[in-house]
């Protein structure tokens, strides 16, 4: 299969040093009537080919906005990106022309949304919507596009794909609908797939099946996978590494195993402690006290300081940088050592 390559963009497997996709110190603001909403305040994460990055954080922490910035589907205005880079194979996507970005979108970086019922167009058949990728981007005929759609529906394990290709989204169950979204997103073999809470709207057994499907597809194609979630339990089995977000910032970046073993940020620690655990059954669940901050008026110093059990005086005045702990690990906490050692203050 040939890929159209916009001028400024290296071809698949081409040069481009470093990771497949790197978000670097990204800032996104929304100009609203109430003021400037600082939704993303210096997010950095990377994902390599064949790698799965889980982006974890409470609702409102800026996970989706970051993803939409990568896709280039933010409404600008009201959104503005005052600072930061999004490097795809070494090229900063933010510096590309709108035309060049359209070439990347959907073909080389694709996205799956949370609620497949509202994310699929209600008035077109699922076959039409999947085959649109081939018709528009590959110039295929309607009939060939439909054949491809059936193949893809088979690939995401939708039973009786040949018959169901002519059905409309509302005629499918929630899980099947999400499979259709997935089929549509992987249609052109993207190099990066962003899944924004792909299982949140589904029940637990279906959640596991969808996760398994995503993991399988990723293994087959070696794409970089960014899994956005607010539920650590969902991604634990499939993720290679985790980026924890709080108030529009990454507070901890680490391999999954390391985070589970010993978190290096008080917020991550709070998240882990609030997961129900079989061995602690019957005990009251821990909950991080307080509320997420107002993005119109972020606290000075460390954004987490009003809720932090480790807080010291300098936390209120000095914003912590992302401290490098090891080559693969970093934490945005002045006292990451103490947290890592498990000393609750």
């Amino acid at each position: 299969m040939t890929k159209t390559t916009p001028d400024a963009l290296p071809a698949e497997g081409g040069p481009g040093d470093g990771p497949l996709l790197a978000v670097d110190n990204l800032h996104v603001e929304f100009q609203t009537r109430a003021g400037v909403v600082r939704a993303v305040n210096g997010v950095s994460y990377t994902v390599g080919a064949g790698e799965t990055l889980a982006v974890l954080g409470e609702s409102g922490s800026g996970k989706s906005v970051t993803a939409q910035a990568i896709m280039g589907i933010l409404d600008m205005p009201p959104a503005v990106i005052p600072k930061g880079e999004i490097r795809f194979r070494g090229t900063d996507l933010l510096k590309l022309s709108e035309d060049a970005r359209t070439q990347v979108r959907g073909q080389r970086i694709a996205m799956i949304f949370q609620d497949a019922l509202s994310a699929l167009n209600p008035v077109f058949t699922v076959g039409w919507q999947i085959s649109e990728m081939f018709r528009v981007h590959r110039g295929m005929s309607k009939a060939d596009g439909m054949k491809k759609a059936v193949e893809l529906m088979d690939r995401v394990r939708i039973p009786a794909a040949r018959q169901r290709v002519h059905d409309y989204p509302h005629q499918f169950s929630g899980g099947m609908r999400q499979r259709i979204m997935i089929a549509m997103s992987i249609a052109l073999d993207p190099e990066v797939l962003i899944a924004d809470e792909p299982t949140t709207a589904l029940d637990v057994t279906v959640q596991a099946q969808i996760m398994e499907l995503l993991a399988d597809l990723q293994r087959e194609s070696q794409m970089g996978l960014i899994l956005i979630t607010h539920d650590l339990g969902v991604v634990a089995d499939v993720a290679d590494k985790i980026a924890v977000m709080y108030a529009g910032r990454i507070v901890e970046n680490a391999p999954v195993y390391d985070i589970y073993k010993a978190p290096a940020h008080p917020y991550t620690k709070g998240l882990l402690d609030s997961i129900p655990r079989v061995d602690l059954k019957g005990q009251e669940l821990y909950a991080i006290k307080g509320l997420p901050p107002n993005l119109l008026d972020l606290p000075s110093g460390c954004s987490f300081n009003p809720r932090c059990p480790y807080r010291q005086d300098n936390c209120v005045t000095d914003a912590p940088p992302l401290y490098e702990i090891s080559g693969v690990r970093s934490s945005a906490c002045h006292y990451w050592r103490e947290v890592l050692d498990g000393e609750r203050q």
Partner: protein
Amino acid sequence: MGRYVIRRLIQAIPVLLGATLLIFCIVFALPGDPIAALFGDKRPDPAIAEVLREQYHLNDPLLLQYWYYISGVLFRGDFGVNFADIPVSQIMAGKFQITLNLALTALTMEAVIGVGLGLWAALRRGKATDTMILASTLLLISVPTLVTGFVLQLLLGVKLKQWTGADIFPVAGTFAGWRSYLLPGFVLAGTSIAYLTRLTRTSLAETLRADYIRTATAKGLSRRRVVGRHGLRNALIPLVTYLGADLGNLMGGAVITETIFNLQGIGNQLFTSVYLREQPVVVGIVTVLVLVYILANLVVDLLYAVLDPRIRYE
């Protein structure tokens, strides 16, 4: 689907009966004597008047009169005769065509201008074009048809002809073929154009906020395709409903326009017949209008199912 249509048609019968009875009562309650009106200024011979009264059942109770009438319509397709013995169906036939032409012209203008302006405004939301379009719709809504009618007749009809020498927009009658309908069609469609513009703007703007629009963008489709294919197809649904329902309104509301432009349609006829207290003609016209309403609504509902696959009639 077939069963649904039949059920809807059966449901329409009481509506039709109710509407005709109502209009029958209203016409009956009008002051004045139709037989006297027939003789104009002259005083009718009481004996002749009495014979005529008997012949047209004017001495019978109201409900009985209604029964004579409606049984003729239902069982013989006979809308009766007026007081000059001309069949009502014959009176209506040619006039109905004129009104239908007028209404269809108006509907086409509505669809083209209203939807067009609405799309334009939606795509330029908050910009000067948008504000200007919104302001002009407001103007169109607030100025009465009577005023737009006369003003346009004067400017585009009379004055334009004086200046250019060419009769581009005929101002009266139907002798110029389809061009005769342009000006009255626009006047009739005026407020509807304005409403449809606003409806289109709102509908498309709302559709463009939908999640599936974001998905379409994320698929790497051009803005044109996202709006024109994914957006418009969804935004169209309420517009078709509005257009369909408006056909009845346009036909029923043509009285003023037909009078201004001297079009001999059913609106004009209705006006004359109410004046002359020709019950059979008034009731006949209203019956046909009610039928048009009912059928237009049925067509809209069926179109709805075609446009929106989530809707199914069994």
